[in-house]
């Protein structure tokens, strides 16, 4: 166990020294890897912010339930009971008197409302479902429509479906982009390691002659690839945070112009660690491919 640890510690230290020994090369490689990871990472966070924006937008993913005009207080109580049992998120009752007052308050509507012989508006419920998936919203809408004394159930499902389709398309594009740039990262690491193997061919040859196993030869290159990928991932996270911070002000101003508030979500510590981990994994894969091919000439 001590020997195993000692070998890994030495390989890790050797990989770190190699990164440090050529700072300019390392910096350029990290920039390439960092930028390659920044684009999909930024896309992921941007889509997530967009999803949050869609969820928070007023009226979106809400179901409006309108009662019959002749619905009694008992009927309203029955609907409240059903909503409570369904436990499908939050809901709010809007009595027809309150709806009329709001209508009167609207510009140019006071006279029209005053001329009406009676209140034409029904009692209503505004439901904020817990599950905002389009399919779940549609199922809930159909269920509510079947309840007694319910005249109309309104869900802007077309908007929700379009928004969801847009998000799915965005996710798909993001995966494709991530795959493409991931392959780029593997290629960058592959080439860096190949050059390193060439530069250290004398050491590899001697080490093999005096009893180095394949694992001993390969290990520092694996660590190098993983370290380079991890640092590239951290750089990408820093770039994403920097870009989002720059965008935060203008996005807030834009939201204010529409009468709302919205602040961009920055990547969390878990996401940063995942990004670094993904970079390390791809770097390791690139190193493995490169070392396997490059070391064949020593066999």
């Amino acid at each position, binding site marked *: 166990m*001590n*020997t*195993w640890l*000692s*070998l890994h510690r*030495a390989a890790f230290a050797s990989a770190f020294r190699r990164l440090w020994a050529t700072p300019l090369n390392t910096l350029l490689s990290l920039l390439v890897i960092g930028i390659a990871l920044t684009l999909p990472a930024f896309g992921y966070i941007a889509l997530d912010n967009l999803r949050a924006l869609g969820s928070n937008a007023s009226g979106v993913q809400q179901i409006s339930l309108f009662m019959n005009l002749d619905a009694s207080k008992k009927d309203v109580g029955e609907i409240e009971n059903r909503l409570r049992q369904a436990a499908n998120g939050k809901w709010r009752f809007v009595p027809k008197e309150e709806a009329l007052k709001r209508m009167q308050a609207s510009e140019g509507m006071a006279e029209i409302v005053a001329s009406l012989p009676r209140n034409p508006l029904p009692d209503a419920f505004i439901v904020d479902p817990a599950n905002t998936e389009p399919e779940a919203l549609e199922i809930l809408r159909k269920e509510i429509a079947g309840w007694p004394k319910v005249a109309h159930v309104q869900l802007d499902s077309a908007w929700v479906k379009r928004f969801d389709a847009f998000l799915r398309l965005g996710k798909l594009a993001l995966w494709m982009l991530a795959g493409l740039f991931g392959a780029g990262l593997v290629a960058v690491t592959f080439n860096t390691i190949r050059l390193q193997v060439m530069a250290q061919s*004398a*050491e590899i*040859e*001697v*080490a*093999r*002659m*005096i*009893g*180095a*196993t*394949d694992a*001993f030869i390969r290990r520092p290159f694996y660590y190098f690839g993983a370290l380079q990928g991890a640092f590239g991932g951290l750089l990408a996270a820093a770039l994403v945070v920097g870009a989002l911070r720059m965008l935060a002000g203008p996005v807030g101003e834009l939201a204010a112009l529409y009468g709302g508030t919205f602040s961009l979500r920055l990547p969390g510590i878990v996401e940063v660690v995942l990004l670094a981990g993904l970079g390390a994994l791809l770097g390791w894969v690139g190193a493995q491919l490169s070392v396997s091919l490059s070391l064949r000439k020593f066999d």
Partner: protein
Amino acid sequence: MIVASNLTKRYPGGFEAVKDVSFEIVAGQMVLITGHSGAGKTTLVKLISTIERPTSGSLVVNGQNLSAMRRSAIPHVRRHFGLVFQDQKLLFDRSALENVLLPLQIAGLPRREAIRRGQAALDKVGLLLREKANPIALSGGEQQRLAIARAVVNRPTVLLADEPTGNLDAESGAAILDIFADFHRVGVTVVVATHDQSWIERYHPNVLRLDHGRLL
């Protein structure tokens, strides 16, 4: 103990460097492999050290049949040998001590212990004061002594050398001979391929004489 039976090495193209060679080297012996240039000395050293694999025949070292050994087991066998090459194969991007430490790093020795043993090996060959020097700054004789220090630092049971004095003047060559003799004196099996006849006159070793790949 090293036992070779009907050992043959044929290179791609059909050239047979070693032909049907059989011999036995007892532990602790000093053996000289001699012969003119192209006689097969270097190939025989490479076969014993598992750098090359025989085309046919068997080679048993300390009870292990190297000819039938899995590829993954070979590195562990090589650690029982201390190898000294004519061109030393030193690494010029690091100090003399770091060169000597390489076999210990491969064996996974803790750094502090490795340095202690590396310095002891350098001391044995008279290079302790040059531990920080780059090998390129050492003379030919010193470079060869450094190569010997690297070969013995892991306390091998067999010290194998291919023309270790080939590139040296008489004085430096004699110093190298003395170092090999010292290791032989403490029980290390020493196998040296050389065309330098002064070894025979000074140490009266067992001799394996090769001619066109065959043992005479």
